[in-house]
């Protein structure tokens, strides 16, 4: 994790030196916006990975929940938001139940749900984008506090903190880690595996839905194409943040760092106006450096440093 910090700080320094606007409040604000969108999806995904599962449907959920938010929230935003969140939680529960009842890999069940949801999004959209004319709300969500924080980023940071604390001090949190760490042992030792798995999926659905709804409010628009790139980025961020695909390892704080690494990188590259191939190459290179640091080369480095 220390190395992730170093990576993050190094990137921050480089971008600050390369472009004087990197630390400008407006830019930090926009960094927070990307952090919010990716962070919420990554946080939910990370929870399912922590419990030893994987939720592929998060990206599609962003599109669907945005559409629900705007379609049902035209007259009353709270109705839309509540519906979107309820839908997210419901689909999460469905994912969890399918995985638990069928005892098959959640990659397979959530794959089915993902395809289903993307179809549902197109259907909701009905060939036309869905827009929002409640500009007051949109403006409220585009407000800035202390000139760098937006409501979305504050909500996201709060959720990261809440989930981190909940994992540490609730029985459910302990059971989530137990169920991911060693499913059979968790069952045998009396952990409530079913509620752990179910809660992780519900949280994942809920967070993705929240991400989608907030995105729709801030953009004043929802579309079936939203969220298309999110799943892969969220998985990268979670793994980069120390979440192991095998379950039980990693914490929300690490995920936040992982998300920040990706957001800072793309924010910085956008700021210095890097060309498309350069953006792709640097994205790959940073991820590669991060894995090498975790793999054998990093261990050699650490060992040889310890030897001196």
């Amino acid at each position: 994790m220390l190395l992730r910090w170093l990576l993050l700080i190094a990137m921050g320094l480089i971008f600050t030196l390369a472009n004087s606007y990197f630390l400008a409040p407006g830019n930090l604000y926009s960094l927070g916006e990307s952090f919010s969108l990716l962070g919420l999806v990554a946080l939910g995904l990370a929870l399912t990975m922590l419990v030893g599962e994987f939720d592929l449907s998060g990206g599609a959920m962003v599109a669907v929940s945005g559409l629900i938010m705007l379609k049902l929230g035209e007259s009353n935003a709270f109705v839309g938001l509540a519906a979107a969140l309820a839908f997210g939680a419901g689909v999460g529960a469905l994912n969890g139940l399918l995985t638990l009842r069928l005892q098959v890999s959640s990659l397979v069940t959530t794959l089915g749900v993902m395809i289903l949801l993307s179809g549902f999004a197109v259907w909701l959209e009905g060939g036309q984008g869905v827009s929002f004319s409640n500009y007051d709300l949109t403006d409220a969500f585009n407000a800035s506090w202390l000139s760098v924080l937006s409501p979305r980023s504050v909500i996201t940071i709060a959720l990261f903190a809440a989930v981190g604390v909940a994992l540490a001090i609730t029985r459910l949190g302990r059971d989530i880690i137990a169920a991911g760490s060693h499913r059979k042992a968790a069952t045998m030792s009396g952990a409530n595996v079913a509620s752990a798995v179910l809660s992780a999926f519900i949280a994942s659905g809920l967070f993705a839905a929240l991400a989608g709804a907030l995105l729709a409010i801030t953009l004043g628009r929802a579309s079936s194409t939203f969220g298309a790139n999110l799943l892969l980025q969220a998985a990268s961020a979670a793994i980069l943040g120390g979440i192991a695909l095998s379950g039980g390892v990693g914490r929300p704080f690490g995920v936040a760092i992982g998300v920040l690494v990706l957001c800072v990188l793309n924010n910085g590259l956008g700021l210095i106006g890097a060309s498309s191939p350069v953006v792709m190459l640097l994205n790959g290179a940073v991820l590669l450096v991060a894995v090498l640091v975790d793999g054998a080369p990093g261990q050699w480095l650490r060992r040889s440093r310890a030897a001196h």
Partner: protein
Amino acid sequence: EGAQEGKKVIFLGADDICEYCAVYNGQIRKLAAAAGIDLEVVTNKFDAAQQATQIDQAIAKKPDAILLWTIDGTALFPSMRKVKRAGIPLLLTDVQPDQKMDDLWVQYSGGNYEEQGAKAAQLMVKAFDDKGMEKKGGVILITGIIGQAQTISMTKGFTETLAKLAPDLTILGSQPGNWDTGTSTQAAAGLFTKYGDQIKGVYAAEDIMMQGVLIAAERAGMDPTKMAMIGGGCEPVGIQNIKSGKQYGTVLQSPVDEATYAVQSLTDYFNGKEMAKSHYVPHPMVTAANVDQVCKPWPKD
């Protein structure tokens, strides 16, 4: 004249993974440099959310103007409002959002997608006439990605115009080709299997998708030279297919034109010229007869 020189402009556009975008990006860099504009190009992966944050970033940099290729027609209104509030002039290119909001920008320059669809319909009718076919029976549509503004407008223009010009031609089916040859091949193959000889013509919104349609037609044992095959864009692959006779025609949309218009639009703005809200690039109909005159090969860099 010359007031544009040294002005700082941020262009927010699309990634090079789309060929049209790549040509456009190359051209606008070149043309802006020639005009003395200090242009910064920031691209994204067709991701409206990412573009919204890029607009925030651009505002933070306080440029003299922002040139925006909106990834999503309406998603960026809140961002555009922020640009306006920051007092930065906004010019649009390639994708024209709902004109009700046109007080947010100075000028839109670029393609007119609804008109392109309409021209494609006219061209299809012309193809029927040229090939001596009765304007009866069915045609199919291979569209871009569902939900995108371009797809919506092109389909609208085509459908409405065709209904007006040839009411006896029915649209049998429509499937997305996602601006991709392979997807279009499969989509067209399915429709060819279902409707077979009922299909007299195909409108594929981009030439690269028409290429897929032609492959599917050949596999289905249909003769594309006897059908009204209409593409879009006059892309290199379209030129090839028009010359070989497999594709009847296309509707020009040139990235070179668009980039030229965009730089013109910037120059006009900085020089305080009177500007119309929309400045459309020409969309001439292209067939074998005029392909060499109308369609310039896309520049290599």
